[in-house]
């Protein structure tokens, strides 16, 4: 590892499994077109639940990414991670050689792990059949098996981690991957988030917190961040994975570079188990920390041309995030477009940060800001430019993506146009 030149971090590959499509161009095309993926729950009978809508992945065939035996042994969130990671590494054109493998990290984010396996297995044990619990119960349930299985499939023998930081997990995993490449000598990192918990327990649990939209009769308009009539988030599922590479290595092999990761910050509200600080103080600390980190690369707040918001469509989040942006950016805030792609994907929980960092990189690549759809009547307390309903052209030199999770845990990552810095 050379220490005389500051190490930099390139995004060279993207893989996506989302409710608006599997595969980078399909998912991004729908996001730019403002097409959402929320609909009635179809993967189980949700008739007994208060919320009966979700953003399900509809076009995913695991056998496109793994053999039948592997498919049988993995929980869905792990399959999404494997599929998106395979897509991302193929997209990067990265060959994991024997020499490179120990210098390839894998950091995944996942909030809840294999909840469906937990529910199914619990039913078995309640029937008095403890000896019928599958040997695959534990491996399917633990969240870090996403990172473990990706490493098995791709032969990544570097550090292997899971960030289990709820809805901030995907962003934290990318931040961790970034730091492993920039500061700890890793040559590459496969990182991002994955989640699949459209299950009775998860929906009932989020309903109990009153976090979910119950707009069951109008699913397409249920996820409406920053709108006056928002009534909670919509559970989504999927995975968003980036391949990060040390800059000079990516350049030397002629890799296509989507963006550079310029900075990362994290913080904690230290306030409440589920509610964010209503002044957005924790979120502001996270954004400020990312800006401080990026300042070493010459980034100033005025360089941030777009923010992909956490923007969950809950009453509390959208107001406090608006306040936090104002706290951090001051007079600049009203001039920075802020949009929530959760208006289309729903809230992918631990996968959200991975998917949204990918969308942020693609916004930089294409010079297009994805819209916040369903923004019909802005909440008076939400008075920023949310790119309402229609995508917008804007060349970007730098952009930020935010994620905030239960436990008051926050993360922000700053991406920049390649060769702009």
């Amino acid at each position, binding site marked *: 590892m050379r220490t005389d030149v500051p190490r930099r971090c390139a995004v060279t590959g993207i893989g996506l499994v989302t409710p608006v499509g599997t595969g980078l161009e399909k998912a991004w095309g729908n996001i730019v077109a403002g097409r959402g993926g929320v609909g009635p729950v179809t993967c189980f009978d949700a008739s007994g639940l208060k919320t009966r809508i979700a953003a399900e992945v509809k076009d995913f065939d695991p056998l496109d990414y793994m*053999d039948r*035996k592997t498919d*049988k*042994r993995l929980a869905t969130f792990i399959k999404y991670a494997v599929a998106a990671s395979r897509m991302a590494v193929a997209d990067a054109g990265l060959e994991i050689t024997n020499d490179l493998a120990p210098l390839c990290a894998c950091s995944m984010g996942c909030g809840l792990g294999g909840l469906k396996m937990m529910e199914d297995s619990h039913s078995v044990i309640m029937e008095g059949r403890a*000896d*019928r619990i*599958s*040997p*695959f119960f534990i491996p399917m349930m633990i969240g870090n098996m996403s990172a473990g299985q990706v490493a098995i499939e791709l032969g990544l023998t570097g550090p292997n981690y899971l960030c289990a930081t709820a809805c901030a997990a995907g962003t934290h995993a990318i931040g961790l991957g970034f730091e492993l490449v920039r500061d700890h000598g890793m040559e590459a990192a496969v990182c991002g988030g994955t989640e699949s918990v459209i299950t009775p327990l998860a929906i009932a649990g989020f309903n109990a917190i009153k976090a979910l939209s119950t707009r069951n009769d109008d699913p397409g308009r249920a996820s409406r961040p920053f709108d006056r009539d928002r009534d909670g988030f919509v559970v989504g599922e999927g995975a968003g994975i980036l391949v990060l590479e040390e800059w000079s290595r990516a350049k030397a092999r002629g890799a296509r570079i989507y963006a550079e990761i310029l900075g990362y910050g994290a913080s904690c509200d230290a306030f409440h188990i589920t509610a964010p600080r209503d002044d957005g103080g924790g979120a502001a600390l996270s954004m400020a920390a990312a800006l401080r980190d990026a300042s070493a690369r010459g980034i100033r707040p005025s360089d941030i041309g777009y923010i992909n918001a956490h923007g969950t469509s809950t009453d509390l989040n959208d107001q406090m995030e608006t306040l936090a942006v104002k706290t951090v950016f001051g007079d600049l805030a009203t001039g920075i477009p802020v949009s929530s792609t959760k208006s289309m994907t729903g809230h992918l929980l631990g996968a959200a940060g991975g998917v949204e960092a990918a969308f942020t990189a693609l916004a930089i690549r294409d010079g297009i800001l994805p819209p916040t759809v369903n923004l019909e009547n802005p909440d008076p307390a939400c008075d920023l430019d949310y790119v309402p309903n229609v995508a917008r052209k804007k060349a970007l030199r730098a952009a930020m993506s935010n994620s905030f999770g239960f436990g008051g845990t926050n993360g922000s990552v700053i991406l920049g146009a390649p060769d702009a810095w």
Partner: protein
Amino acid sequence: MSDDIFERVKKVVVDQLTVEPSEVLPESSLQDDLQADSLDLVELMIGMEEEFDVKIDDEAAQSIKTVQDAVDFISRNAS
């Protein structure tokens, strides 16, 4: 009788180990030929216990190395 047991064992093996029916021969080694790892073997024994309503304790499970071993065990122990 034992042909019938073989066919039923074969079906459990095909389902649990995700192998092709043509690969499952009496002499097939579960681990070497059918690529079962330790977790697969536990799942396979659970599958056979359910199919044949027998109890396969750990010691018995250890002794079942091939498809024929499983057929023999079932023949001796199934009611």
